[in-house]
């Protein structure tokens, strides 16, 4: 079974803090993704990575950065958290094989106060 683990289920941070969201997958998948889910907006792609040390911007990268130093780990960084970054953050991995495409973690609900 593919497992994608996000380090925190709930996180509360203050405006201006630097925030790290961690994601680890155990299936040797090449590709990893960060989405955020907001009511009425669905899932929107923030950043993705097809290989170690590689990153590409998704549809809403502003205010975020990522790090992929190891194949199994993909970190999302909020350089200076703002209230409009309060959201559910979902990490996913994939291997470009099989019909399922993305395997998601359980999500991190981030509140920025």
């Amino acid at each position, binding site marked *: 079974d593919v497992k994608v683990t996000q380090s925190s289920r709930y996180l509360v941070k203050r405006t201006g803090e630097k925030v790290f969201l961690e994601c680890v997958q155990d299936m040797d998948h090449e590709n990893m993704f960060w989405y955020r889910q907001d009511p*009425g*907006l*669905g899932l*929107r792609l923030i950043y993705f990575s097809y290989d170690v040390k590689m990153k590409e911007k998704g549809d809403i990268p502003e205010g975020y950065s990522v790090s992929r130093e190891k194949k199994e780990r993909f970190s999302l960084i909020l350089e200076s958290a703002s209230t409009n970054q309060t959201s559910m953050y979902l990490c*996913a991995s994939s291997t*470009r094989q099989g019909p*399922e495409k993305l395997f998601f*973690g*359980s999500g991190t609900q981030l509140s920025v106060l």
Partner: protein
Amino acid sequence: DQQVKQNSPSLSVQEGRISILNCDYTNSMFDYFLWYKKYPAEGPTFLISISSIKDKNEDGRFTVFLNKSAKHLSLHIVPSQPGDSAVYFCAAEFYNTDKLIFGTGTRLQVFP
């Protein structure tokens, strides 16, 4: 610009009846479509998919229909069960990139 749209935010269906969830897309270059299901406090899980070369794919109680000329796909669940109550997202992909564009989701409630 929303490339994948789910115009019904919610749907309520009686147990045993058919649930039909709809999805429209604007980019004709999409060549693979998927449906994911999401329960509260869990990540989305894959439900069923369809390639653009097909117009129907069936898996048990779930069937996805694709109408390329209308840029429309639908998910049929027959018969609906209370455990099907969840948020359903359609998603589209092009060129086997695994980069999925998601719709806004439809919350399905199946009542006894």
